[in-house]
């Protein structure tokens, strides 16, 4: 496996671009992003971020394996990772496409014929740049510009791998497109870049799940996701994040949503040491809808900061944010999110609900919701509750014959139920399994 020396330099940026044989505009984009990265500062409000040494990370690794087309050809250790996640074998056959990111390149991908015939594109981002340069250039870096934040700038300079999805006009992709991400090299930085474009009246459900084997030194995952949802289209984007506890997961995801289109995020964060992630919807045209359902669990030595932002910029736009955070064993979970109704976004409505459940006395929960309006006919509301499991409910369940752990499990299940029920059934089972494993540790 060929690796670069550690650290971020202009030389690394140029070398990545040269190895990938990229067009000149992409090299320029990377270099400009690198300069932006140098100018921006690292957020200081999460103390654990101080442990992230950007100079001690390898920014690109060229994998030895070549691309695989069928499941049978996938290396055994990768299959083992899927088994660890509890994905049933039978599921492979019904998956619309599976794409796995190992190290910095996508090694495995398959796209069934049905999708190909529909004109649906589901590729790794590097190949997409070669094969669909026009679509790529039109949207790449436009929804999440490098100036968005320091880690988006770093990703823009160093990106490698990720998914590219293009759904032509009127096409409804009935089965979810899935991508699994994984880090398996020590200190390897992951800068996947996802670009999803839905043409008018199309539909897709994109699912990404993450898992990482445990290793001793810190790894950084700073992904960027850009989604374009055109008139009348509907996009669902589901993430199950289960990085090992030494991973810094600093993602930037943003969607632009046009007339009567809908963008629905579902986010399950259970792993990583530090997570900072607030997907955003820009509701740009009349009738656009944005939605975020998020559940986060922070255990020992974890600091998760999750949330979402909804920006209403056109009339009759609607949005919902529902967040459920759980903390235990000294974990820290923070909700950060906002809904903003701009002037002239008439008759727009937004609703934000964030709840925190604290499972022991060593843990920390905070919520920072913001609602803002400048439109007389707009309506926006926010609701928060935080505390522990209700004693009366626990006592009642125990009086009906349940043990205390059983009663707790039931109440925790009810707490996260609004989010879990939105997941595809196999993911709901998988997530419950992960959560139960973590909580009962």
């Amino acid at each position, binding site marked *: 496996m060929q690796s670069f020396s550690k650290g971020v330099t202009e030389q690394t940026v140029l070398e990545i671009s040269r190895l990938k044989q990229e067009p000149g505009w992409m090299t320029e984009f990377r270099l400009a992003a690198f300069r932006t990265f140098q100018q921006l500062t690292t957020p200081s409000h999460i103390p654990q971020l101080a442990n992230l040494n950007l100079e001690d990370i390898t920014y690109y690794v060229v994998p030895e394996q070549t691309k695989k087309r069928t499941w049978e050809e996938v290396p055994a250790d990768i299959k083992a990772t899927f088994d660890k996640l509890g994905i049933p074998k039978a599921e492979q056959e019904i998956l619309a496409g599976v794409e796995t990111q190992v190290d910095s390149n996508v090694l495995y991908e398959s796209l069934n014929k049905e999708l190909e015939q529909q004109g649906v594109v589901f590729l790794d981002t590097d190949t997409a740049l070669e094969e669909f340069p026009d679509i790529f250039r039109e949207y790449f870096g436009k929804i999440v510009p490098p100036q968005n934040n320091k880690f988006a700038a770093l990703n823009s300079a160093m990106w490698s791998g990720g998914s590219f999805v293009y759904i032509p006009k009127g096409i409804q992709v009935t089965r979810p497109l899935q991508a699994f991400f994984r880090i398996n090299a020590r200190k390897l930085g992951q800068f996947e870049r996802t670009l999803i474009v839905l043409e008018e009246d199309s539909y897709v459900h994109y699912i990404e799940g993450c898992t990482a084997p445990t290793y001793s030194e810190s790894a950084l995952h700073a992904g960027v996701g850009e989604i374009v949802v055109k008139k009348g289209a509907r996009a669902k984007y589901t993430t199950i994040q289960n990085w090992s506890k030494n991973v810094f997961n600093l993602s930037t995801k943003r969607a632009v949503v046009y007339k009567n289109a809908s963008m629905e995020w579902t986010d399950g964060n259970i792993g990583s040491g530090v997570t900072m992630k607030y997907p955003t919807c820009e509701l740009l045209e009349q009738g656009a809808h944005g939605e975020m359902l998020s559940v986060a669990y922070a255990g020992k030595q974890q600091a998760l900061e999750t949330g979402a932002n909804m920006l209403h910029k056109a009339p009759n736009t609607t949005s919902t944010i529902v967040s459920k955070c759980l903390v235990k064993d000294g974990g820290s979970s923070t909700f950060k999110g906002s809904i903003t109704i701009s002037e002239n976004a008439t008759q727009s409505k937004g609703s934000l609900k964030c709840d925190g459940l604290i499972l022991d006395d060593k843990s920390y*929960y905070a919520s920072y919701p913001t609602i803002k309006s400048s439109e007389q006919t707009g*309506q926006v509301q*926010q609701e928060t*509750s*935080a505390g*522990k499991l209700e004693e009366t409910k626990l006592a009642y369940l125990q009086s009906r014959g349940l043990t205390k752990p059983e009663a707790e499990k039931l109440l925790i299940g009810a707490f996260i139920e609004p989010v879990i029920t939105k997941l595809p059934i196999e993911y709901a089972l998988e997530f419950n399994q992960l959560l139960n494993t973590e909580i009962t540790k």
Partner: protein
Amino acid sequence: MKIEQITSGTYTPTENCQYVITQSGDYTFVLEKENLATEIVCIAKSTDIELAIEVIHKASNTRSNIKVSETVTSNKAVFTGKVIIEATAQGGQAEIAHKVLALGKGFTAVSKPTLELKTQNAQVTHKALITPVDPKELAYLQSRGLSSKEAQTLILEGFYEESLNSIKDATIRDRVKKAYEL
């Protein structure tokens, strides 16, 4: 219960208190004495206002309740409410309720009710709402013979009623009513 109309500052109540706020400022309340209850009532009407209210629960079984009612026309209204329940404040309870009624154009209303919990043995809730006058309500009142202005005045009275009535001191209540012509 002690009832006070206050200006910017830090307050450490030694008995159950109700504080009434009608102007911009940074207000901090430190609850250091066990079992103490503090109520904070804020009222503003179509005036530029920036309120930053922080309540720090340090002692066990302390309770706080922040209630903010304001209208906006072409002004700026920014509310930041922060509740911190320290690990020492076992059994702490806190509530924030912020409501804004939008009456005009060109305003900015911001609500940031935040909380930090350092113990599980506490209960905190907060809610905020920025809303226009319900056109159905307005239409109903007009159908009963009220002019548009009278109907709006009545809705406004209804909007402030709960907060005003919760002020336990009649003199302060009348002063607030008079200041805002309610």
